């Protein structure tokens, strides 16, 4: 297992180098830079813009720019955000807690809902309930999250007043107090529900199909023949086997947790990685944009590795070497 992990990790290096070249080229191919766009003649002058371009190294040859960037990156220096004027690393660290909270809450909601619906569907396949659940799942999957977000705000925040409509915390409560954490949960719940409830389809259907498949297997027939209660067969014997494939999803969710939800975060004005990503695209904040893309690429690769390893852990039949 250790050998396998090391081999995989080493294999990631050329992949990451390739990704870095692609990310860098794509960023540089975007027209304009952080200094172009609508000019405010009050605040700036052509001389200032020319000077800043020189200072930021935008006039260097591309390979030099790439080399400077990647050298800094390897040493953990992600550069300075051209928009916020602070190191990108600090910027990302500032947003990560919010995004993690939102991501984990959404994932928990997804898992709980998918688990309940999947178990129900798997046990009673092709019934009205099963079809209703499938219908619900696919409708949710089909609704774009920004539509759901806008409607959720309108209904739950403005009409029913159950949740706040924006932000991650009420600024008037004291930081660190009990109310502070309550306020944070209160703020995160609505976006988390929008995110979580919308993405149950794959988990539910996966679980359902696996349960159906397992229920036809020999060990289930044996258990039935022995007179084990149906409830126990489903909740213990089948479930334990059916959860295994779900574990692989966890690896893929890993990158999504940090990556944040670009659209949902923006609509809820929830300051996280997703919102930062969108802003860095619109304002040509290359250092932030490139650091985030690299980070997400790395996490995706790492998540895949994690999924493979976890697979080996939960299912002894699979050997990694």
């Amino acid at each position, binding site marked *: 297992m250790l050998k396998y992990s090391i081999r995989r990790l080493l294999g990631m290096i050329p992949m990451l180098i390739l990704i870095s070249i692609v990310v860098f080229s794509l960023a540089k191919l975007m027209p*304009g830079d952080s200094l*172009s766009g609508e000019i405010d003649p009050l605040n700036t002058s052509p001389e200032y813009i020319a000077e800043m371009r020189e200072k930021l190294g935008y006039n260097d040859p591309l390979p030099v720019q790439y080399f400077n960037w990647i050298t800094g990156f390897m040493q953990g220096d992600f550069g300075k955000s051209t928009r916020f004027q602070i190191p990108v690393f600090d910027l990302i660290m*500032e947003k990560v807690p919010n995004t993690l909270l939102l991501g984990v809450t959404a994932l928990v909601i997804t898992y709980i809902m998918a688990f309940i619906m999947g178990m129900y569907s798997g046990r009673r396949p092709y019934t009205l309930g099963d079809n209703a659940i499938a219908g619900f799942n696919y409708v949710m999957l089909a609704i774009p999250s920004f539509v759901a977000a806008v409607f959720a705000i*309108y209904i739950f925040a403005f009409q029913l007043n159950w949740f706040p409509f*924006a932000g991650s915390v009420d*600024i008037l409560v004291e930081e660190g107090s009990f109310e502070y954490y309550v306020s944070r949960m209160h703020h995160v719940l609505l976006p988390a529900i929008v995110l979580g409830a919308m993405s149950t389809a794959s988990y539910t259907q996966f679980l359902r199909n696996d349960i159906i498949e397992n229920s036809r297997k020999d060990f289930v027939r044996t258990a039935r023949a022995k007179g084990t209660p149906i409830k126990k067969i489903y909740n213990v014997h089948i479930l334990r086997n059916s959860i295994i494939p779900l574990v692989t999803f966890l690896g893929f969710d890993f990158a999504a947790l940090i990556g944040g939800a670009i659209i949902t975060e923006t*609509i809820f004005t929830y300051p996280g990685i997703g919102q930062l*990503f969108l*802003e860095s695209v619109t304002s040509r904040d290359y250092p932030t944009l490139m650091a985030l893309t690299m980070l997400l690429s790395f996490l995706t690769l790492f998540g895949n590795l994690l999924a493979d390893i976890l697979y080996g852990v939960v299912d002894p039949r699979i050997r990694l070497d």
Partner: protein
Amino acid sequence: MKKKSLLWLFALVLILSAFLAACGGSDDASSESGSEGDGSSEGTAEGEPQKGGTLVYGLDAPPEGLFSSAFYGIATDAEVIDLFDEALISYNENLEPEPNVASWETEDNKVFNFKFEEGVKWHNGEELTVNDWVFALETIADPDYDGPRYANVQTIEGAEAYRSGDADSISGIEVVSDYEINITFDEARVNNLTNLWAYPLPESVLGDVPVAEMSASEWVRSTPIGIGPFKVDKIVPGESVEFSKFDEYWNGEVNLDKIVLRVIDNSSVVGALQNNDIDMISLQPVSGPEVEPLENVEIVTYPGLTYYYVGFKLGKFDNESQTITEELPKYQSKELRQAMMYALNRQEWVDAFFFGYADVVNKPVPSAHWNAADDSELIQYEYDPEKSKQMLDEAGYVDTNDDGFREDPNGDEFVVKFSHYATGNPTFESRAQQIAQYFEEVGLRSEVEMVEVNLYYDMVEKDDASIETFFGGWGTGTDPDPSGLWKADQLWNYPRYNNPEADQLLDDALDIEIVGTDQEKRKELYVEWQKIVNEELPMLYIAELEEIKALNTRVGGVEYDVSGQNSPAEWFVTE
């Protein structure tokens, strides 16, 4: 990912409109819709100012977090700074400077003597002295300074030498006492004062920070201080700021106890206003019609300093030599440009795309400026397609091959190529198409090209051959001098308009030898200049925008004029 964000924006606007229609429908359209903005506009609550209470101030875009006058880059940050800091000099509704903390005297417009109020306190309890201002000026002139304000310090005598490292201090700054300072400029200009950087920086907290690290320091990011009526208590980056009343504010009583600033997404603005979740916010024109019917909200408009235009590329500019090197023949005919102006139904266009929150203009100087020419002195270019057709006929643009469109005087095909920037806002394409449609109606074949916004400005600036006529906008500041956008040696003179006579007028209006300190005389010269560009039309002036604010009816004491809002100290809320 680029595509994704564009798609998102597009879809969001569609959804937004459905959503707005839904929540607007439940109200009777009975409330009055805002006072019209001529001169100044007042907030809505009646009666005596009340003490206490919390006002919620909305922002529809997240600030970048550069909460220092010397370092901020975008208007959103400036809105936050305005709540806790103020300038040494303020501007009245005619955009003329007025003493605030500092008053001044000058005899020759070269040497200025400033006197500060005594007893003005920073939020950390230190007293404001002229040294804080010197500190600000030296910070901005420092070679390590990474903000965009150097142009406002450059004109002080010795600033160049300080910046290049040849001097240890700026020679034009002479501190007389803690409350008195003399500033000498490199030459006498009429606009030296309005151009000068007039915000102090707190030396007591930033004094030990190297200039290169200032913009990233916590004093700028999370614990900024100023001299305004409110002090910053807490900042949650990107989403909210809490301000509380500053008890030692130098200039009178402060009414409110607290201001809470919240960032909200555009899609939530109308709902938040309706639910009393926010008390005041700037509105986009598109939200105006949805907010007007709300009973608990009033809309206040005041004149803005932004105008939109359709420019012609008349030449090419060489940035090295700062001269216009080549003349492009296609749109040189003044009659053609005037005919195209008469072809535009600008009022209809403005009503359709700015929902009435804009006025048609015929000059490139916002009407709120003191040097704006009166309409009676300018050609008005009322929509007149018949006149347009006639002018085109006379200028030789006639349809010679019966394809329904006019050819140029040589008989070659003539196509108006019109470029507009694209940002994902779906109305941009339709508004560009509409302009092309007006040209086609008088027989000029037109093509619209939408270009991604950053690339667009790059192309316009570099005189790319594919840009022939282009849509653009400029915001002008408190200094009404249009030289930076109009003279032949300026990069931002995008039409490459080259008229030595007009340039001479602009130079004269700034020349202290000619105009002295006589504002009337300056105005005459500017009016003369406006008459020229009004007749020659190097660009087709379209409209100037109004600023739109939504105020909850419980808010009072808020006043707006063209220079912006009044001091937040005067704001109050009723329960």
